[in-house]
């Protein structure tokens, strides 16, 4: 008989000493290829209160759109200075911040170019399994044809697109994650 999946359980409130290491919120070294960006935001609950005990993980392609993984068969360059994984906890106000690069476009089946995006996992007390969402980029032409973005109801797509809050600082992107209620972020069943 084949073994059966181990069920998910909540990360609980006490994970930080085990899972959070200073520096993991930065995905880049000084030699990573690509355009530097900062992603910052808050995680909010159904009362619009910040969640202070959440963990966020990012997984993304490098500047050429290549994932650092053997199952990515695209003929694109690996960047030895960029592995694409980051992790951070929220602070007492529910804020998080990552330093990374803007990913390139990955090529899907049929040579369809996917819009640049960052894959996000969210864990917290009260979440019995992780939530998954994606961060897309504002003003990207490929957003219009991205196969995942197009499965989302048009009225909710904006929850997946980061914002530039200050035109003088286009490298700082804002992405709030609303777990519940009005403007609830779109989450994916992967």
């Amino acid at each position, binding site marked *: 008989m*084949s*073994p*059966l*999946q*181990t*069920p*998910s*359980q*909540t*990360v*609980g*409130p*006490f*994970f*930080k*000493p*085990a*899972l959070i290491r200073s520096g993991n919120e930065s995905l880049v070294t000084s030699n990573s290829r690509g355009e530097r960006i900062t992603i910052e935001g808050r995680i909010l609950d*159904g009362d619009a209160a910040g*969640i202070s*005990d959440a963990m966020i*993980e990012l*997984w993304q*392609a490098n500047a050429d759109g290549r*994932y*650092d*993984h053997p*199952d*990515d*068969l*695209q003929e694109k360059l690996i960047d030895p200075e960029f*592995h*694409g994984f980051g992790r951070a906890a929220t602070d007492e106000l529910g804020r998080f911040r990552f330093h990374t690069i803007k990913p390139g476009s*990955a*090529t*899907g*089946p049929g*040579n*369809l170019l*996917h819009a640049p*995006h960052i894959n996000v*996992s969210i864990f*917290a*007390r*009260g*979440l*019995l399994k*992780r939530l*998954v969402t994606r961060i897309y980029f504002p003003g990207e032409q490929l957003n219009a044809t991205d*196969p*995942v973005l197009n*499965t989302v109801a048009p009225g*909710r797509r904006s929850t997946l697109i980061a914002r530039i809050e200050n035109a003088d600082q286009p490298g700082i992107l804002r992405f709030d994650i609303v777990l*519940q*209620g009005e403007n*609830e972020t779109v*989450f*994916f*069943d*992967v």
Partner: protein
Amino acid sequence: MNSPNGYRRESSGGHPPYDNPAYASTHKRAPRNAPVRLEHTLSEITGPRFAGDLPAPGEDDLTHFDGGEALGERIIVTGRVLDEDGRAIPHTVIEIWQANAAGRYAHAEDRHEAPLDPYFAGIGRVITDTQGAYRFMTVKPGAYPWRNHHNAWRPNHIHFSLFGPSFATRLITQMYFPGDPLLDLDPIFNSVPDRSARERLIAKFDIEVTIPEYALGYRFDFVIRGREATPTPG
């Protein structure tokens, strides 16, 4: 370009729903909209590996810390990481955290009035070998109260975080101990709908793993999602 196959989905009844009336912290945190099903793309079939940041010697022994030895009942926990086809998952990192023998976490936010143990941090890491096997030593964690409802107590448990080969296989879970009377009363354990799935979260005592005169042995396997038999569509 052809992509490798995607991963199988969550087994139905085998995982908790987000919204669980008995677990108060879900009330304001569970999304109201159903998640949007996403066909697996390169983003989901690839995933992080722990390049350059692998567990160091000693991270598999939680019983020694800061020059001293932790109080409590020493235990060995061992098992394998497998996928649904029974394939071993080698070289995957497992992160471990738990309360001390008195039921207290070495964490600033844990206000339970049970003693801290200066020689127990409750944190470990291991990596599976080529057969998908892992093993670590710790002390059995104590039960602890929480404020979910009147007289609420968490059963003895150890927290685990593992990645597997892809973004799709990411898993955070908890392992419980056989015969614990608190299991039937625990909303988190009982959030898994199927009884047989819940029971997969309970380790098995194993006299063969037990070290004479030293530590009790428990077996616990992790089973992560297997691959789809056919290639992912668009």
